């Protein structure tokens, strides 16, 4: 959940240069983190296309 919060903050706020560098380096070097970023974006897309 901590990573999801971190990922959300990155996409919904305006990250500074330090955070941008750190975030992108993690995506490239940490496959688990990259998977969480992809999941976050895919989950939001699926949620919007699903009906009750």
């Amino acid at each position: 959940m901590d990573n999801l919060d971190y990922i959300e903050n990155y996409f919904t706020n305006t990250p500074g240069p330090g955070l941008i560098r750190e975030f992108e380096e993690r995506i490239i070097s940490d496959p688990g983190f990259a998977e969480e970023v992809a999941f976050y974006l895919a989950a939001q897309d699926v949620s919007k296309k699903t009906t009750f």
Partner: protein
Amino acid sequence: MDSAGSNRYTDQELIDQLRQSGVDKRRSEEQLFNRFAYFVREGMTKHALSEDESFNAYSDTILAALDNINKAHFEARASLKTYLYQIFHNKCVDLLRKRTTNKNTVHRAEMISDRLMQLSDSARSVVQTLIDKADWNRLREKLNELEEKCRQILMFWGDNYSDKEIASFLQYKTADVVKTSRLRCLERLRKLYKTE
């Protein structure tokens, strides 16, 4: 006698009358409709629906409740008020989502690509590859396996509503509570998606 001077049935008496036929049934249907008609106002204040939308949600609620009572699907485990309010609340939420889906489809369709464009080429390429490999049907199936409240939160989030708006729609105390619940639901979805 109630304040209007008419007989006011208990829940059980009303249910018994609704399962009859003829004049008694019609009178009890009218009483059911009038008894909770104040929900229409709540639909307008709590769910930001128009009067027409809220009235339609309320009418549909009564029809659904009558159908369930007639088919004996209503087991009176909750009071009529609680039972009807739950149906009404869900119908309001349905209306809100339909309204959003019609209004913001184009904007939201661009959300993933907009967000990917926030990343540098190399980071974007890694995430795009993973998104392309995602099993969308499985993700959708797992979303539908979540409990109703979680699904509702995530669907409003998917529709790009703020946590403050979701708090108002789903009657959470604060936006912070919504955010915490939403991220927990998202984590639950991720675990379901990853677990075979």
